[in-house]
């Protein structure tokens, strides 16, 4: 499917994966952050999975309201990611900032209980959840990176992302069981979701340590100063630019599933199953791919993930796609997430001094988020003007070019590091 110039043999990597000592190198702090993310993802996915039913059938609303909410705050939740990271570095209080984000999201669950059918309150509830998610992302990743040895970053982020994906799979299941036991008691789902969120927050506050709590605050005083400090590192700005450029030619899940549906191979009712399938693959591959990123240069794993995305485009372009094509798309999409999401955080963390981890991770999260928005707008525009296959074709041509340019740039920064 794709090839790395291995610095070691695949067998050595497999041996490493089977070795218990490899697993022991993932610190308790990382496992505990993973538990917080798992519980929080159960909490948020419980609600996300029942929300359409609650709004449309229970309240009799049109869920187009989410379009209105998205229109209200464009880019706000993107920028919040960057500020969360910067604030974490400045105060050295990554743990407290992450906790604030988790707390806001957990408390937003109560919003559903009191909002009823009031659109303004529903908008406030959804926005609070999103802001909480935005604030916590960079400080949480900074905590993971500060709790791991530089050579184990890939595996640590892999473990964290696998636990996150597990929560995303358990959440809808929990909501389904609750509603089967107590039909129409959506309020019980909100209460259970709140409880999960609070327990997740308690794990973070009580058991997760802030590794750099005793260190002096960062010397850089201004936000722009921090940005300058970040961009003075070639490895960092190259990685940020590369990840944004790649995100700008990445088709979102929604479009991929829509393409499968337009092909006629899956029905609309099967779409939730596609999400489950993708998540399942992500869950299984996050640790192996993360560990691989500690073994071969991380940028190669990261680009390898994007090669899988190119393969998805090409499969979607096959006319009269057989059902096996759907399985291949799910495998590749899960693999894409496993090889890119946590690996990018490991790549950025590995290139940064400790006091710039939060702002670096926040910067890349914001850049990728904005690039994704642009990609969705661009792909949607192409789709409506020229049709699905033409839009896919354009992205299938653009992505390999971007991969090659990014590969060249990332390899260069690697050489510079070696030379200096």
């Amino acid at each position, binding site marked *: 499917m794709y090839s790395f110039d291995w610095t070691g043999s695949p067998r050595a990597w497999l041996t490493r994966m089977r070795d218990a000592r490899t697993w022991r190198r993932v610190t308790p702090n990382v496992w505990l952050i993973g538990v917080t993310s798992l519980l929080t993802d159960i909490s948020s996915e419980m609600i996300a999975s029942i929300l*359409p039913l609650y709004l449309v*059938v229970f309240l009799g609303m049109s869920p187009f309201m989410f379009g209105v909410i998205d229109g209200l705050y464009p880019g706000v939740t993107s920028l919040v990611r960057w500020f969360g990271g910067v604030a974490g570095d400045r105060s050295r209080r990554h743990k407290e900032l992450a906790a604030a984000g988790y707390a806001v999201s957990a408390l937003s669950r109560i919003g559903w209980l009191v909002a009823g059918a009031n659109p303004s309150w529903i*908008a406030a509830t959804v926005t609070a959840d999103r802001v909480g998610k935005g604030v916590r992302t960079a400080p949480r990743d900074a905590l993971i990176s500060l709790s791991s040895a530089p050579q184990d970053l890939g595996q640590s982020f892999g473990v964290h992302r696998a636990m996150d994906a597990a929560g995303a799979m358990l959440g809808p299941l929990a909501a389904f069981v609750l509603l089967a036991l107590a039909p129409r008691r959506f309020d019980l789902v909100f209460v259970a979701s709140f*409880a999960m969120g609070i327990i997740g927050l308690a794990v973070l506050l009580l058991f997760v340590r802030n590794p750099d709590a005793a260190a002096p605050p960062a010397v850089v005083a201004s936000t722009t100063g921090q940005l300058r400090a970040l961009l003075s590192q070639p490895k960092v700005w190259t990685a940020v630019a590369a990840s944004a450029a790649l995100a700008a030619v990445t088709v979102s899940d929604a479009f991929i599933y829509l393409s499968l549906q337009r092909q006629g191979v899956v029905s609309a*009712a099967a779409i939730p199953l596609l999400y489950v399938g993708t998540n399942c693959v992500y869950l299984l591959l996050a640790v192996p791919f993360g560990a691989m990123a500690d073994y071969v240069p991380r940028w190669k794993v990261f680009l390898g993930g994007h090669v899988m995305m190119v393969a998805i485009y090409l499969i979607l372009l096959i006319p009269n796609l057989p059902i096996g094509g759907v399985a291949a798309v799910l495998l590749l999409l899960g693999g894409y997430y496993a090889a890119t999401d946590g690996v990018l955080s490991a790549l950025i963390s590995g290139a940064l001094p400790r006091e710039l981890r939060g702002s670096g991770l926040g910067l890349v999260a914001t850049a990728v988020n904005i690039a994704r928005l642009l990609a969705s707008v661009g792909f949607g525009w192409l789709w*409506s003007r020229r049709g699905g296959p033409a839009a896919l074709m354009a992205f299938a041509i653009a992505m390999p070019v971007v991969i090659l340019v990014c590969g060249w740039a990332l390899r260069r920064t690697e050489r510079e590091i070696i030379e200096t």
Partner: protein
Amino acid sequence: MTWRAWAFIAVIVAVGLAGAGYVRFAPGEPAVSNRGAVTDAPATRLSVAPARPFIMVRSMVADDSFNHIALAPLDAPEGPRFVTPLSCERVFFAAGRGVCLTIGLEGITTTYAAQVFDEQFAVSGTVPLTGMPSRVRISPDGRRAGITVFETGHSYAESGYSTRTTLIDTASARIIDHLEAFRVTRDGVPFHAVDFNFWGVTFARDGNRFYATLGSGEVKHLVEGDIDARTMRVIASDVECPSLSPDNTRVAFKKAFNSARGIGWHLHVLDLRTMVDSALTAETRSVDDQVEWLDDDHVMYHLTGTRGADIWSLSTIGAEPPRVVVPLAYSPAVVR
């Protein structure tokens, strides 16, 4: 054990107790909504179906009538009702034919269907649906039904949902077509985009002409359509969920607002003869429903609290405040 472990156990216990307390003390089934202006549902029931005219509703009363279709006499709609054996999420009825939209569980997947029924509430046919039931209307001559469902994960918008609107022949309980397959024109020229969504059909007296919403991008258009010709044309914008008045001269609809006071929808009426749009300012709350005309001068719609819904009525010509017309009910249809 360390104090942290004890604190964690304390958190678990507190959360468990709070959850148990909620389950114990929260009202179990949908009860009175949180607005205070609601009267209780009638304690007694009618033993025989009332004579026309009556209002058909889905009952939201927290007893064994919950979700069942109920009939309330038009001259005393807040009084005792007749409860039918059919249960639905949404219902409509006209000229001897009704359509009931249902949700069922089959294994771990949810199934959606439209049941066509007659005046004796006997189901004559079932049409499977592809998404969550949202709106249903039947033409005044009873021949056709228009059903809107919401499909998840189908829209090309990142966080969006999309609709599918299906026309059904009520005599055979077969699908005539989907609005997505109709030709659309705007200002006389063909109009098409991949993000088209159609919802909220309302039929004219002849059972062939209809109005509906066409959403594309941020704009919601009002379209006038012809079923036999499979065509639609855009006649106005900023119109959602149209409902044609009994005399076929006006369309009541909801219009989105987004101001410092919040977001939501307000009710408006568009006069089709003059194309003059007037806001129904006596209702200040957000209404998200396809309204039903109570008579030529009043519209009805539901308002939901956290635990139930009531049907309210509002004058389209006067300024008197809205009032509850059928308490603890949903999805009204006037059967004349």
